[in-house]
């Protein structure tokens, strides 16, 4: 089983990248975790280029295609997801009849420096992922006041949030396992 982590923030000290790292630590032994690093290299989506989009988009699509589950961590910009993240999703979802997003198990978590913990961004990301054909877990992890939310080891300070993160990661792994069993039986 392979899980691909995608942080919606490009910033070097990103809280969401840190949250992804905390989530990855909770994956059970035997699950391979890969962090996608190519968000910044993606060109702007252009439907004219969707069949021959260049290496950055090919890399994104092949990483998603090779993953059994996707774990997104998103910040919230102006009550929505970052344009870079939406751009990546738009590339990955096209052309729609051969999208690598179809039936892909996905979970969304998020952190923000506000008191709301990127809940609107997470809801919008779940909506877009589902529209792209993904199997999205209907859960959210609102990490608010992100600069105060991690301890020195990178774990969430609030035990409830850390437990919720473990639940969401566990649910993603469970859903991937169901899918893999179904495909093996087919």
């Amino acid at each position, binding site marked *: 089983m392979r899980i691909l982590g995608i942080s919606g923030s490009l910033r070097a000290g990103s809280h969401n990248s840190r949250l992804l790292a905390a989530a990855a630590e909770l994956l059970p032994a035997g699950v391979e975790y890969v962090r996608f690093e190519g968000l910044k290299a993606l060109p702007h989506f252009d439907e004219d280029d969707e069949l021959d989009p260049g290496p950055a988009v090919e890399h994104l699509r092949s990483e998603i295609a090779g993953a059994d589950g996707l774990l997104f961590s998103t910040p919230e910009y102006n009550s929505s997801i970052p344009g870079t993240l939406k751009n990546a999703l738009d590339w990955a979802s096209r052309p*729609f*009849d051969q*999208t690598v997003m*179809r*039936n892909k198990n996905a979970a969304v978590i998020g952190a923000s420096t506000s008191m709301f913990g990127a809940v609107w961004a997470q809801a919008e990301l779940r*909506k877009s992922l*589902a*529209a792209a*054909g*993904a*199997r*999205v877990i209907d859960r959210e992890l609102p990490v608010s006041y992100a600069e105060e939310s991690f301890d020195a080891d990178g774990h969430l300070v609030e035990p409830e949030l850390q437990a919720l993160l473990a639940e969401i990661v566990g649910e993603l792994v469970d859903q991937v396992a*169901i*899918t893999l069993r*179904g495909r093996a039986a087919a």
Partner: protein
Amino acid sequence: MATSTSVAITPGTYTIDPVHSSIGFTVRHNVVAKFRGSFSDVAATLTVDSDGKLDLTGSVKVASVQVKEPSLAGHLQSPDFFDAERYPEITFKSVGLEPGSDGTLSAEGDLTMKGVTKRVQATGELSHLLEDSYGGERAGVELTTTINRHDFGIDWNATLPSGQGFALAAHVTLHVELEFTKS
């Protein structure tokens, strides 16, 4: 569709003629418009026992959904809607099929969609032709029913920007037109 006659349908097993059959649905969207779709891969069997009791089973492959937009066809197969990967078929099995003397048909049966089975009632027509152009017996079944898609866990929706409700209605009308040839 075969011509309706008053002759009772003869016992036996009738298999679907897929070219002359269709299973479709209509749902209201954007409050005012009706959206139509259908399934191209359909299977059905009608059996009539020696007492004249009718039994109907049928299924459609979710992957064969036909709509005008390819992107919508993909979305309909996704977990947001039918979830074709985990629930590749929609099935129906009758528990009671009551033909009236005037060609009407009342049906009750179990509809299974997205892993949920619900008892549904439908009404329509039963027709029968003793000899078609090739000398075979034909039967026709037309049934219509309206279901609530939320009963089957098909919950996708979007609020309209105008605040005038949801993009997609809860109630979906199913249109079944089947033509059978006697085996």
